[in-house]
Structures are given as structure tokens and as C-alpha cells.
């Protein structure tokens, strides 16, 4: 579903990604871990076609970037720590706008379905500026899956959320993954990543230094796995 080979990304003289290889099978939930500044967000922006690779090949859902970026974008949903929502529009109007941008046919029923999934049906007519941070993040997930994408990218979705909001987000993320979508999530919250993901990749020094599943740390925990990966 995602196939990245020898990816290099440079900003001026600084090289952020140094020949990164990354393959994700359909339906996998990959937690992308790494310290601040490792290049996780840069990598996700390249997968989302928001940034061009300097070198290397990137394929998402069978289409290569940047040449077939519109086809990739039609099959991709992105959630970042910014909700990408308009505060002066209602929850319904925000989803309606994105539904139009994705050319959906039966917009009304899809919007109702998505609002139900993220638990905001009762607030559909309320302005987004009246929403708490947690509610905005749930609606942001609704925005990202409005077109039922095959691949969903989450970039630090828990940033700024309190405990209750994070637990609600857990449920929404589980329901997104349960539909068989391919998910890549960056997070510093190892406990949540361990709970949700099926595979754990550590990005350090511009490459994926370690990759593993739960089987690889069944006698310890993700924190030990992560520390070892950083020390390696």
C-alpha cells in the first residue's frame, strides 16, 4: 500500500531524510516513532504529497509521487495536530466543504455517517469555534475519512488533548483501523502507540533504524524496544 525506496529530502544544505526505505502492507497500523527533529512530519508530508522528495521513489496506493499526486490524494486522509477546520463554519458545513472538494456523490448521508462515527451528530449545527480541542480533533478525523480513504496518516494526533479527549480519540482511531484501512501514525505517546499499532518503526538519523511487531518485545515493552532502537 505504501512503498518508499531510498527517499532523500533536503532543505537547502540540510538533509533530513537520508535514503529511507519503508513498506506498509494493506491494513497494517504502523506507529512511526522517533525523537523530535528526526523527520517524522517531513516524511508524512511527503507521503501526503504536501512536499516533494529530493530523491528516491514513493508510491502510495499504487500511484507514484509526485507525478500522480491527485490520484494519491483521492485515496489518502491526513490528520495532524492542527485540525484543518474552519472555526466560523459548523461541523456539518466543514464536512460538506471537504465532501465537495473530494467530489462525493451522496454527501448528506456520508456526512451523517461520519458525524456518527466520531460522536458529533448532536453538535452538527454548532460552530467549530465553540468546540473543545478534543471535539475539534474528532471532527478532524471525520474530515480526513469523509471520502473513505484507503490510507490514513496521523501526525501527532494526541497533541494538546487531555486524558478524556485522548481516550475518546483512541476509540475513533480503533474504529478507523477496524475498517481495514492502512494507518501510519507518528506519536510520542508510546503507551497509546503500543495499544493501537500492529507494527512499530523507529525513525532516527534520517532512516528507519528499527522495525518490529509486538512479538519482538513480548517479554518487555515498547519503551525498551524504542530505547534500544535509539541506542543502536
Amino acid at each position: 500500500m505504501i512503498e518508499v525506496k531510498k527517499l532523500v529530502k533536503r532543505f537547502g544544505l540540510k538533509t533530513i531524510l537520508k535514503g529511507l526505505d519503508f513498506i506498509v502492507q494493506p491494513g497494517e497500523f504502523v506507529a512511526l516513532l522517533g525523537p523530535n527533529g528526526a523527520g517524522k512530519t517531513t516524511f508524512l508530508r511527503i507521503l501526503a504529497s504536501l512536499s516533494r522528495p529530493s530523491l528516491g521513489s514513493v508510491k502510495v496506493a499504487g500511484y507514484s509521487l509526485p507525478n500522480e499526486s491527485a490520484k494519491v490524494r483521492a485515496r489518502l486522509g491526513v490528520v495532524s495536530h492542527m485540525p484543518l477546520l474552519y472555526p466560523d463554519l459548523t461541523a456539518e458545513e466543514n464536512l460538506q466543504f471537504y465532501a465537495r472538494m473530494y467530489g462525493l456523490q451522496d454527501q448528506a448521508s456520508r456526512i451523517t455517517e461520519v458525524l456518527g462515527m466520531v460522536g458529533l451528530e448532536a453538535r452538527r449545527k454548532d460552530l467549530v469555534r465553540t468546540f473543545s480541542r478534543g471535539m475539534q480533533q474528532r471532527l478532524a478525523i471525520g474530515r480526513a475519512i469523509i471520502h473513505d480513504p484507503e490510507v490514513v496518516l496521523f501526525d501527532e494526533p494526541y497533541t494538546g488533548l487531555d486524558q478524556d479527549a485522548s481516550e475518546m480519540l483512541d476509540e475513533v482511531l480503533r474504529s478507523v483501523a477496524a475498517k481495514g484501512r492502512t494507518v501510519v501514525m507518528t506519536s510520542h505517546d508510546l503507551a497509546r502507540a503500543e495499544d493501537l499499532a500492529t507494527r512499530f518503526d523507529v525513525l532516527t538519523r534520517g532512516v528507519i533504524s528499527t522495525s518490529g511487531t509486538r512479538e519482538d518485545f513480548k517479554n518487555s515493552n515498547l519503551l525498551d524496544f524504542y530505547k534500544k532502537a535509539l541506542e543502536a
Partner: protein
Amino acid sequence: MNTPAPSFFKAVFAIAHKDLAAEFRSRELLSAMLVFSMLVILIFNFALELDVKVRQSVTAGVLWTTFAFAGTLGLNRSMAVEKDRGCMDGLLLAPVDRSAIFFGKAISNLAFMLVVEAIVIPLYAMLYNETRIFQWEFLGVLLLGSIGYISVGTLLSAMSVQTRTRDVLLPILLFPVAVPVLLASVKASGGIVAGLPFEEILAPLNLLIVYDVIFLATSFMIFDYVVEE
């Protein structure tokens, strides 16, 4: 879900509609542009000694100065809303040609500028006792000038919004580039107010049309590169 690619025009309409709906609720952008325009008109009214002849010669200049500055306020704010909340990424993620974003934003920016002009023109006529601006030819020039100014302004605001000094940078970038449009607009609308024959305003009018086409075509071609990281 198999989603068909959205049509270019539907995406343009969706963006313009979204901007107008959000502005209808908040009225932040329009109120700022209107208050600013009215203040400029008032200041000019007090600052200039206006006998009939002088009034005739300054009308076009005063109006276009006012619209250019007020337009800059609107352009800055319109793109800042997208950038500050990360919504520009939301637009860029849509599976549509990115020039649709340019046209959607340009249409909403033009609508805001035309609303300001529709309110400021009668106010100007009242304060300056100048009724010759209520001519179809004058309003036509106003529309052409606004299209040229907004098309280059929307493109440059997409560039300047990426920087920390966007409020200062936009006018610095925009005014030199928009000089041909502003000069042609002032010449053409000034000629209409002065009652010059059509042949005499044909040259600035042609220039205005040519610049509108050039700015629209250029923006269409390079917007994708401007918004790309």
C-alpha cells in the same frame, strides 16, 4: 469508497462559497476593509482643498488609493485564515488541480472588494458631491481594475503568507507589480469622470484588459509552484 475526481469548477465554487459563508458569519474581513476605506475617504476629504476642478482630477486617484489599501487588508487576512489554522494543507490535500484553489480564493477576494466598492462609491459621491462616478463605464473600469488587482494580489498573498513578516511583505511585493493595473485604472476612470471621449480612454482600457489576462493566466500557471513546500 470510489470517489470520482471533483470537477475543477465545483472545487472553485466550493472554496468561494466556503469563504463567503465564513465571512458572512464573522464579518471580520469586510468590517476591517470597510472601516479602513471610510477613514481614508474622510481623511482625503479633510486634507484636500476641493473645488470643482480639483475634485474632478483627484476622484479616480482617491478611490483607487482607497481600494488598493483596503484590498491589501482583505488579501492578507483571507490567506492568513487558511495558513494559521493549517487549512491550506486541507485545500492542498484535495484531489483537484491546485489552480482551483487560486480561482476560488480570487473569486471570494473579488467579491469582498466589490462589496467594499459598492458601499464606498455612494459614500464618496455624498462626501465629495461627485455624481459622475455613477456611470456604467466607470463601474466597468472598477470591475476590470479590481479583477487585475485581486488576481495578482491573491497569488502574492499565497507567497507572503508563508513568511513571518507577511503583513509588511504583501504590500511591498504587491504595489510595484500592480502599478500597471492601478495606473491604467486611474487613467481610465479619471477619463470617464472628466467626460473625455471614448477614444481617449481606449488606451488605458486596453492596457487594463491585457494586464487582467496576463495576471490571471500567470497566476493559473504558477500557483501550484507557489504553494508547494
